[in-house]
């Protein structure tokens, strides 16, 4: 393990993670002592349109993976349309590798609630829902407690702090479906249906929850809002890059000395992150990694100096995603890793559209065949052909995402596939496990 150099340490930007150091920050009185609800008081004295402009000026982009400009999204909500508006927080964290929202909601739940109140005020919503992943029970426990505390203090309910604005917040637990992290599937689930994505357009901005104007934002996005309200857009932009402003929580896992959450300005590199994490584990050399969860094409040791912002990762042929950097070494097999991800996509495909439902099913079978030593050269072509039929032809991003590890691992690690196919590498799966596979 190595100690990071000063210049690398200075890449750290503790903003959203700062309160995590206070073990009682989840209690409202402690939160209030730590700047809590100061942003709300400031925001509620401003005009809602000015808050939307403030978020636009900050350059804040969605933290859930797509990076859509948040202020722009808020601005899409039609005003004076006579319809109820909704804010829905996507807290359905489940992208493999991603683990930044759960600690935030567990250790600093009020920062999310405060952001929800400010955002709802800006878009003129009187109801907000936090759709939290069902399995995230401790985070939900703390969030529900935080909502109760906020009601008791008059931060929620009617006439919040005398502003005339009313807001009710419901914490809604999901029930185990990755697809509900897709925003329109989330809305269907929240309406009490199977979580399956909707055809777009129309987009949620005009036809979202209950066919009404709706903003759907990730936890990290909404939790960023109070800091921007307090510190201002220029301070926010002092972190990150020109087009990808602000701090971001990078979730490092895998073959490094100190896995964990590292909040840095957008644009930090994997080399710097690994240095912060104390280096690779002894005996492990970086071989492949995901920049932002398994739905983002794999990168390799050659990409260690790519700036991890929206533009930098796109230029390298991948996607920033949720900044969940899963780090694998020369002791890990990219074919096996991809197989496990494919089993995940197969399991989580909602079944609505054929390319994703069938494509992932068949690809899992092909991976089993390759990994059990019975693969053929044609299997590689079939995999890529299947990806071609899934990518861009699926209803939502789940199908597109499933192709990411497949195409990128074939692109960078074709030899590994050939080693299984041509018998140079011992089968990873036994023939027994092929029973029932097709």
């Amino acid at each position: 393990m190595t100690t990071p150099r000063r210049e690398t340490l200075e890449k750290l930007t503790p903003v959203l993670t700062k309160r995590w150091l206070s073990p009682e920050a989840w209690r409202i009185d402690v939160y209030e002592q730590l700047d809590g609800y100061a942003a709300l008081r400031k925001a509620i004295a401003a005009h809602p349109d000015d808050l939307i402009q403030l978020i636009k000026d900050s350059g804040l982009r969605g933290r859930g993976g797509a990076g859509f400009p948040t202020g722009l999204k808020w601005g899409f909500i039609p005003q004076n349309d006579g319809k109820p508006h909704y804010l829905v927080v996507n807290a359905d964290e489940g992208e493999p590798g991603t683990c930044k929202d759960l600690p935030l909601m567990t250790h600093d739940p009020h920062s999310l609630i405060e952001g929800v109140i400010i955002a709802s005020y800006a878009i003129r919503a009187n109801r907000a829902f936090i759709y939290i992943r069902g399995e995230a029970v401790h985070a939900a426990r703390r969030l529900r407690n935080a909502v109760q505390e906020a009601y008791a203090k008059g931060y929620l309910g009617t006439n919040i702090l005398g502003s005339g604005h009313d807001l009710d917040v419901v914490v809604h637990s999901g029930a185990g479906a990755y697809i509900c992290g897709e925003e329109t599937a989330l809305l269907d689930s929240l309406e009490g249906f199977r979580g399956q994505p909707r055809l777009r357009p129309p987009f949620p901005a005009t036809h979202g929850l209950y066919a009404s104007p709706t903003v759907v934002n990730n936890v990290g996005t909404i939790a960023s809002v109070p800091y921007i309200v307090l510190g201002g857009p220029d301070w926010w932009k002092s972190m990150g890059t020109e087009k990808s402003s602000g701090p971001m929580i990078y979730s490092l896992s895998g073959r490094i000395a100190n896995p964990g959450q590292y909040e840095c300005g957008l644009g930090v590199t994997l080399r710097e992150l690994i240095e912060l994490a104390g280096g690779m584990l002894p005996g492990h050399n970086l071989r492949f990694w995901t920049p932002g969860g398994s739905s983002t094409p794999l990168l390799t040791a050659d990409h260690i100096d790519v700036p991890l912002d929206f533009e930098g990762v796109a230029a390298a042929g991948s996607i920033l995603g949720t900044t969940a950097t899963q780090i694998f070494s020369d002791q890990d097999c990219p074919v096996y890793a991809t197989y496990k991800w494919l089993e995940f996509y197969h399991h989580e495909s909602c079944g609505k559209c054929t390319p994703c439902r069938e494509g992932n099913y068949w690809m899992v079978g092909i991976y089993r065949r390759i990994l059990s030593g019975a693969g053929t050269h044609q299997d590689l072509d079939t995999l890529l052909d299947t990806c071609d039929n899934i990518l861009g032809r699926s209803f939502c991003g789940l199908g597109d995402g499933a192709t990411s590890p497949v195409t990128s691992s074939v692109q960078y690690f074709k030899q590994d596939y050939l080693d299984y196919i041509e018998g140079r590498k011992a089968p990873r799966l036994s023939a027994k496990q092929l029973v029932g596979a097709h």
Partner: protein
Amino acid sequence: MGFSDATREKALEIIARYPADRSRSALLPLLHLVQSEEGNVSPAGVEFCAEMLGITKAQVGAVATFYTMYKRRPTGDWLVSVCTNTMCNVLGGQEIYDRLSEYLGVGHDETTADGSITFEHAECLAACDYGPVMTVNYEFFDKVDPDTAVHVVDQLRAGQRPQPTRGARLCTLKELSVQLAGFAEPREEAMADGPAGAPTLRGVRLAQEHGISVPGFDPETPIKSSRGDGAPAAQAAGVAANKPASDLKPAGDTAKPQDRALKEAK
């Protein structure tokens, strides 16, 4: 099984959280509620939800069977889930799953003969920095290995309640399902359980130890007032983005970020 009046009252309380004409939004919490009574979602539970919401049993059944947390067969008090997704898997999750499966004598989504433990493999549990992980009733046991995992289930079967590494002290799956239905944690001490683990705090601690903070933060920074400016343009963009599908290219015609990876792989 018939559901009591108290359950009915709880159901009405759940329904009241949602807009009056949108009671169907209460379906997921209602399914958690019936699971909290019966330990799984039975035909009677489906019927109860349908009756409370004025929808058909088929509509409820279609939803109940979509989500993995609704169990279709009776469960034990303890749901043991082992993450076998990629990261936990390469760090040893598969060995943990295999060992526990053999030790308990059950496979995925099955319950032990004594009825105490329901076993499953789980997809990514959003704790990769603590991998490999397993959960008992969704509370985390971090960095487990086959031996510690066996020790946890031994304790459960001996009637003990091992303390999770993070998260709250254990309650039964039925008790937890009440919370999933949206009701508050009744155990005050459980709320305070689960201090942040070292990986969660690693980055922010490093910053603290080395005196790193983000300079220039002034909470008094005024919010610029430009009332009304820019709002009409943004709304026009919103309208444009929501043109009916027929005015646009068919879905999927836009370039995807993954296109390059596919092209280069070919």
